[in-house]
């Protein structure tokens, strides 16, 4: 098939319009001079200026970024190890339990994950704040990392690693110098995924946060409940820009790495 049939072209156009139009409209209206969110009153960047004067929002953004960064690092290490275990530890004691625990958080409703972790933290008397949010986020993010890295590991040719071992490399060295570089794009994608998942989460953070550790989605949520406002549009636009640049940079790096090989 080398051309689009009309039906397929229409499906794609409508499908992607549906996916992107709401986001595009949100971005456009963040530059709206009018206070009314749905009436165009001319171009203005005043909501962005208002945003940078909003200390509460900036504090929340700082906490969110810090949590997301720590979560991404922890989840990447744990998730990669889990992926290695899933693909290679075929005789792991309690393997069924391990597999179940790795896949269940992928689809587990967030209200349950959030509530159960909160009850754990309360039961052991762990003070709620930055670390409780980070632990909670790491728990579900590591499962996403594991799935991403696992799919790469499954297609990895084990004989490369065995060749390195035949040439005298100790197993850990063969793993670090041969396997890790090959699965690095998947690990990087896993890190990014964990970062955005954490940055985005509202429900689990609401359950596990304490006083003084309100995250950005929690702030946005509480103001959204009061109604749509242009400065929230501006905050969302900045987040979208952040993510778009990040994803594009990641894609480009992957492309460049691929073409130099």
């Amino acid at each position, binding site marked *: 098939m080398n051309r689009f049939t009309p039906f397929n072209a229409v499906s794609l156009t409508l499908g992607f319009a549906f996916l992107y139009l709401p986001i595009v409209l949100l971005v456009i209206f963040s530059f709206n001079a009018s206070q009314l969110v749905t009436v165009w009153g001319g171009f203005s960047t005043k909501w962005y200026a208002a945003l940078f004067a909003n200390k509460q929002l900036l504090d929340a953004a700082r906490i969110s970024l810090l949590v997301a960064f720590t979560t991404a690092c922890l989840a990447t290490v744990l998730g990669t190890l889990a992926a290695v275990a899933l693909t290679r530890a075929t005789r792991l004691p309690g393997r069924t339990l*391990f597999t179940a625990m790795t896949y269940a958080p992928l*689809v587990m409703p967030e209200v349950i994950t959030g*509530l159960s972790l909160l009850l754990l933290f309360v039961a052991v008397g762990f003070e709620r704040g930055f670390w409780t949010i980070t632990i909670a986020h790491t728990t579900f993010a590591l499962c996403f990392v594991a799935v991403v890295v696992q799919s790469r590991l499954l297609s990895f040719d084990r004989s490369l690693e065995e060749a390195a071992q035949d040439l005298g490399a100790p197993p850990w060295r063969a793993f670090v110098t041969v396997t890790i570089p090959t699965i690095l794009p998947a690990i990087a994608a896993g890190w990014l995924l964990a970062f955005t998942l954490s940055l985005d989460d509202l429900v689990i953070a609401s359950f596990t946060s304490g006083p003084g550790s309100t995250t950005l989605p929690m702030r946005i949520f509480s103001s959204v409940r009061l109604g749509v406002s242009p400065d929230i549009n501006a905050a969302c636009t900045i987040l979208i820009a952040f*993510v778009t640049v990040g994803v594009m940079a990641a*894609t480009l790096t992957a492309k460049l790495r691929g073409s130099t090989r």
Partner: protein
Amino acid sequence: MAPRSPAPKISRWRANLAAIPPYVWLLLFFLAPFLIILKISFSEAVIAQPPYSPVLSLSDGVSGLWAAVREFTFANYAFLAEDSLYIRAYLSSLTIAAISTALTLLVGYPIALAMARAPHGWRPLLVALMILPFWTSFLIRVYAWIGILKRDGLLNQVLLWSGLISEPLTILNTNTAVYIGIVYTYLPFMVLPLYAALERQDRALLEAAADLGSPPLLAFWQVTVRLSLPGIVAGCLLVFIPVVGEFVIPNLLGGSSTLMIGQTLWDEFFQNRDWPLASTVAVLLVLVLVVPITLFQRIQSRGGL
């Protein structure tokens, strides 16, 4: 998955070692919280901090454990069974999830099919475009629809301007808005497994069916759709399971008549501060989802997706 070559014993041992950190982490922060939620669902609510009793204290050893077990109460479960609000919330969550899964499949299938049948060079771009919204905030994507669906929102303005309607429609704060929000946010979860299943299909099969005299629509149904069944099942589960417990979408887009269990649990916890009852709601929600989750894990551990 089946091991392709018998791994050397030493490396299997090492892989077991690699499993320890994530294993311990998940035992501590995934399994243990579950057991606690189960335990608290059998406790009584008290006005205190934390607002439930009794607290299981491990320092008392086995006798303390037994004492705690004897204080188990089924009161919360009995309460849930008696109050029709909760039963209705579970049923309504399942109904909303089923309908929106079906809608997502209807919207997603033509898109996935068109992606799979697109010229080769286009496919990576189309997949990237499908994944990109997934990277932008879930909350933002739901929020974006408020401005569109409001009474004086963009959709009503466009419809009024075009003369299709003479009165603004009430969409926001109804179940319709919830369906739109769910289809919108979960669309990539449906499209990507479908695409993976459809892209593998050999087009020659359709031609063979046509050569044997099958009308195009029948061939499509008997060949394309049937062969994409694993993708359909995976996509539907990926949408259905999280949607049953969805909180953000019904909260922001739904109205007072939208009854969903995620919202009920949230209110029980944050508004009524009845932690044991919230735990009971959560335990029953897990029980409701056990079958689809097990099915999902079967597919996932076969290397699915």
